């Protein structure tokens, strides 16, 4: 027991060492962020430092070769009682009332500065999503569509297995597309229409295939929160809650088939795409395209689909290369499935980086608008954020990657009997992670512009 403790202490020291390596990068990133307008340190150097920090984290992780310790870290848990009946009932009520309130305010509230619009995008899509990976996934308890579906009869048709989770992948990409091309991010009426459409489709699906099957397989939102929730420290178990180390539960997330791998990649791509279409580079491209008389909606769709294909193809290719560098006969599909959970840590880190300043700066606006949902206040308060706040986003990106490196390391040790083999199998994934770190740091460093 004391030996295990020494090992755990060693592991913690190792993790701290990883952070220490990441640290100089952060300090420099901060310098850059605070002087971005006067440009003393160029962006390429921030990217290089970020990439180097991720690469160094991988090299340091290779010093952890003790299988028992790797498992002990991921297996660490403390049990706590689950929420009682009252709490579960309250969560359901909050969910359903929230949905009704959003629909009502979006339908009849003011068209400018509508509280429902702010609540959906800032409160829910940015803020609530953060709680699912920072704390734990409470969506199965809150999900108003699940509660409503429970009131409806069910036909219990058997779900067509060959569809896998592709409906969820398509639905997620479709929602992202609608979000970027339609005015639903500031106009409440179309937002209400989209929410009604989603409600009808979801309730119809749950009625035909049964609520459990529908929310487990086809519903995109339930899966988004389930996957993000696997990164979180609080996990639901059969008999209550268990407290884990962040990312510890990722080793137990079963990504069952190609369509589920595609969903993980789509989740990562969704936030990246959202970041990309608000850069100046994209504004220039979109401006040119529009000047040429091409409608923008299909162009957005093409970029969304093309980028997703590129991400998925890149990940598949890495898995194929990993099969060779890892000298294993595991199939490419198996390698892709087993390493997919590590991408979720990256997706969570990038989500936090992308949305935290958005959430904090608009948080006072939500409070003010929620107090008077049906009238337009003369002024909407916005919290000004200090310039150094960019540093928090960069930290989130790097921490997501460091966590992903640890998860990939643990996965490789779980998959492969050889220690060196486990290290080598990660080469392509690490290369991709270094590249993605630099991409996301670049996206974060771009000043946000309003695109056509």
């Amino acid at each position: 027991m004391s030996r295990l403790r020494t090992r755990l202490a060693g592991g913690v020291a190792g993790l701290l060492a990883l952070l220490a390596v990441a640290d100089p990068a952060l300090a420099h990133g901060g310098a850059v962020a605070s002087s971005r307008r006067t440009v003393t340190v160029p962006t390429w150097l921030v990217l290089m430092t970020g990439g180097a920090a991720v690469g160094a984290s991988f090299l340091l992780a290779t010093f952890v070769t003790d299988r028992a310790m790797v498992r002990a870290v991921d297996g660490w848990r403390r049990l706590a009682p689950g929420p009682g009946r009252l709490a579960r009932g309250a969560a359901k009520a909050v969910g359903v009332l929230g949905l009704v309130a959003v629909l009502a305010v979006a339908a009849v509230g003011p068209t400018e500065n509508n509280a429902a619009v702010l609540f959906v995008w800032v409160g829910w899509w940015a803020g609530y999503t953060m709680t699912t990976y920072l704390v734990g996934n409470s969506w199965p308890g809150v999900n108003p569509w699940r509660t409503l579906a429970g009131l409806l009869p069910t036909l219990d048709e058997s779900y067509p297995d060959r569809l896998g989770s592709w409906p969820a992948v398509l639905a997620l990409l479709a929602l992202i597309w609608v979000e970027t091309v339609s005015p639903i991010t500031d106009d409440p009426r179309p937002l209400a229409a989209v929410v009604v459409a989603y409600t009808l489709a979801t309730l119809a699906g749950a009625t035909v295939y049964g609520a459990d099957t529908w929310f487990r397989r086809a519903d995109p939102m339930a899966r988004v929160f389930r996957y993000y929730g696997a990164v979180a420290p609080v996990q639901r178990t059969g008999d209550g809650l268990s407290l884990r180390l962040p990312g510890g539960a990722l080793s137990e997330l079963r990504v069952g088939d190609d369509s589920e791998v595609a969903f993980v990649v789509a989740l990562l791509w969704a936030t990246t795409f959202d970041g990309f279409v608000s850069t100046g580079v994209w504004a220039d491209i979109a401006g040119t395209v529009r000047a040429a008389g091409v409608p923008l909606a299909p162009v957005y769709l093409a970029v969304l689909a093309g980028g997703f294909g590129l991400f998925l193809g890149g990940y598949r290719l890495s898995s194929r290369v990993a099969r060779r560098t890892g000298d294993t006969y595991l199939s490419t599909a198996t390698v892709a499935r087993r390493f997919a959970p590590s991408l979720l840590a990256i997706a969570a880190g990038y989500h936090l980086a992308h949305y935290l300043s958005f959430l904090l700066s608009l948080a006072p606006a939500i409070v003010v608008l929620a107090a008077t949902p049906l009238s337009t206040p003369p002024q909407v308060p916005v919290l000004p954020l200090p310039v150094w706040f960019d540093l928090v986003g960069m930290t989130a990106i790097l921490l997501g990657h460091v966590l992903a490196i640890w998860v990939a390391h643990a996965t490789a040790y779980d998959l492969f009997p050889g220690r060196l083999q486990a290290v080598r199998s990660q080469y392509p994934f690490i290369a991709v992670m270094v590249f993605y770190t630099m991409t996301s740091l670049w996206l974060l460093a771009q000043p946000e512009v309003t695109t056509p």
Partner: protein
Amino acid sequence: MSERDAAAEDVPGRSEQEATAATAGPTHVGTGPGPLEGGFDPPASADVFECGYCGRPFAEEDLLALHRGHAHSDQLSEPEQAAFEAAYETETGEMRRFQLKAAGLVVLLYFLLLMVYALV
């Protein structure tokens, strides 16, 4: 603690983990017992070393020996045990050399960045 001790202690730690793993999900395809789930795809032309206990294919004899030692430690015959220990010993040496290079690379990265920051 030496790597040898770590390997010896690996066994109880693992079986405990696997008791929870059976319900929780990880399959331990490479090292421990778990469903095969058709996850292998050995090339037709290459050498395949198959585990006599569970049928998993490996690309090298040493990897098979390591797999047997990690996954079927309580069933090994004398020669299999000896093969595991030999393979583990060899691998420990390789791992040490790799870690030496990794440490060198980290230091190199660090100083390269320091120099770049000094120049920019």
